[in-house]
């Protein structure tokens, strides 16, 4: 007997699925809740898309260098304040102004960008120059951009999961392209078995994680990358150098919220080898796949 509801959709350039366990597949209340959850994901996608002219992010970016502060709604204000905290806590490694580097990095091309092109962009990066206050934000330089790519998907997973939990569903998960937030364990109380994609072999798993609550997020160098001279250049770029790190093929973190897990994976990836110590210091369970493909798991003492 097929039990539980699976709602699949595409958003944020990723395959997404909402799984509600312990309900009947056609349970109208569950179906409705799953539809609301996917609508919430799409709402966040639309709101924080750089590509939609009317989105709040497009308006902030369009006003860069004009001296005009863009007023923020509460939700955007909270997210930017959180991004500011991540910037501080990571010593500037987590920087939502670094998305502008994609002007130099074309991960669809086979060749690396010219170092001069990167150098030219670096002056546009730096959260510390952004003026965020009193419900408004201002980017001081023309060409500066905010990009919530590092937290938007994780935030959407949390919001969708919260909608479902508040509707009374405590078994299941929201999986947005590998960023997973659980509603709770399977309906029989057992933890979910979550697979972490193998960074080099498509369709294979590098590790499995048993999780009954919380969230799992993964940053991998296999999502968007350029292979050049036997080195992999992935899309997670250091905001100071404009270049990626090469220490981890993938970093996965378990945290209460997907937003926290996602932020920690990005920071750990950008810290390079130091990332392992950083995650232990953060006391969050994690799975690391190093440059040689070696898998390390770490779980905090309870």
């Amino acid at each position, binding site marked *: 007997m097929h039990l539980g509801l699976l709602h699949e959709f595409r958003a944020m350039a990723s395959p997404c699925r909402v799984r509600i366990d*312990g309900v009947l597949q056609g349970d109208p209340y569950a179906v409705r809740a799953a539809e609301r959850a996917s609508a919430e994901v799409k709402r966040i996608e639309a709101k924080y898309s750089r590509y939609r002219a009317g989105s709040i992010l497009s308006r902030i970016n369009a006003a860069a260098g004009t001296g005009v502060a863009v007023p923020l709604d509460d939700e955007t204000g909270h997210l930017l304040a959180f991004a500011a905290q991540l910037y501080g806590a990571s010593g500037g490694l987590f920087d939502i102004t670094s998305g502008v580097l994609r002007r130099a990095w074309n991960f669809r091309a086979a060749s690396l960008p010219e170092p001069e092109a990167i150098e030219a962009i670096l002056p546009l990066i730096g959260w510390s120059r952004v003026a965020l206050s009193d419900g408004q934000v201002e980017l001081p330089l023309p060409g500066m951009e905010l990009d919530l790519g590092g937290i938007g998907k994780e935030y959407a997973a*949390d919001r969708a999961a919260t909608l479902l939990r508040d509707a009374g569903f405590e078994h299941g998960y929201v999986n947005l392209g590998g960023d997973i937030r659980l509603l709770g364990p399977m309906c029989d109380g057992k933890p979910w078995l979550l697979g972490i994609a193998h960074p080099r072999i498509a369709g294979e798993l590098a590790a499995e994680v048993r999780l009954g609550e919380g969230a799992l997020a993964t940053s991998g160098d296999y999502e968007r990358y350029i292979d050049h001279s036997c080195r992999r250049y992935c899309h997670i770029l250091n905001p100071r150098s404009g270049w990626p790190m090469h220490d981890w093929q993938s970093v996965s973190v378990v945290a209460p919220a997907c937003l926290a897990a996602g932020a920690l994976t990005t920071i750990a990836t950008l810290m390079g080898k130091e990332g392992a110590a950083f995650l232990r210091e953060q006391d969050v369970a994690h799975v690391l796949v190093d440059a040689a493909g070696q898998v390390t798991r770490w779980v905090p003492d309870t």
Partner: protein
Amino acid sequence: MGWAEVAVDATDVPRKARLGAIVLSACALPGVMSGAARAEEAPDRAVIEIKVSGYRDAQDKNAGDNAAATVAKSSAQGVSPAQGHATISSASGGSGSSGGSGGQSGVNLGSNLLDRIVVTSPSIYALVPLGRQWAADGTLTVDEISGASPAYYTNSSSFVHFHDRRIGGDAKLTRYFERAAVSLGVASSKESDYTSNAVSAAARFSSDNQNTTLNIGVGLTRDLNNPNNQLVHDAHKGTHEYQVGLTQALSSRDLVQINYTRSVEDGYLNDPYKSYDNRPDRRAANVVQTRWNHWLDGTALKLGYRYYGDTFGIRSHTFDLALAVPTEDDGRSTFTPSLRYYTQSAASFYVNPDPGSASYPAPQDQSGFYSLDQRLSAYGAISVGAKYDWAVDSNWSMDAKLDVYRQQSGLRIIGQGSPGLSPLSAFIWQIGIKRTF
């Protein structure tokens, strides 16, 4: 482990200060963690539900069909004595047509049965969300009641025939808060010889992790009895009801609930259509209801036990068992068979029939309280039923329910059943259709 605990761990240990900053900040964003948003969510879609239910009972043809008829006037505001009034939960609608009195002595339900009462109850329920934090709902019910009821015991020659129509309505307004909901309700019903008006207030509070819910409620009912036989005029009855309950999720598969209700009735509590009925003018009852729901692979096992005790001396125990089983692979429908056993002791002033007495059925001692009402006798009852729920799509759903009920002295456990009464059988059905907008 709840998130609050995670947060405390993170902040209490200096070494983890940075974890506290990042994880806590993430968790503090509105809507990221459950509970940071509204836990008690107001309904966001309107609902209209139409139900028709029916009740039909009949007694066995044998015992008690001998003595002479006496009084012959009747009605059917009778609610089974051990059921209590449902003022607090009155907004749930439905017709209170359980275990009444009355019946048509001429028509047979079966060859060995004597039909008593037939009730048909159409009802309509509507729920309307009012913004994000308010909702209103209400029910309108019409009960068409006809048949006959014995004036004493189950004596068919004392059957009194009647027809009545009860119109009842209730409305409730609910305000939803972050982890609480508060509602106020009114209810009213009218028959040719009986009116009832009630107000109620209820509140529900959930813990931060929503694993525990506390509910409290009060209800106040004022009834006015004007029997067709003019035995009394504008006889009042007032009911106060207080309820407190706790629901706890023990695990992801187990939900337990305990509810305590105290109900006090004051005023005219006799049944004016019964011969020799003289009851105390106060009746206080204590009810404890416990429930345990256990989920196993989509199937829900529902167990319930209810204790009832009142100052009439009635003690009753109800045991419920139901199994909600998904019936199809697509999971759109559920079949729920159920079994209920009920046993009650007699009221202290219930008088057993004494066919040898010269003044039968009059009680020999008429100095104190007395009653010959079958509903106050000692008996046991079993009901077997099944319900079928079908979710047609995300907007429409339907259900159908059938219960067969058998009440007789011999089914009583913990003591003896009252002698000299005919067993009663009843048949209860309901169909409903619901549209969500």
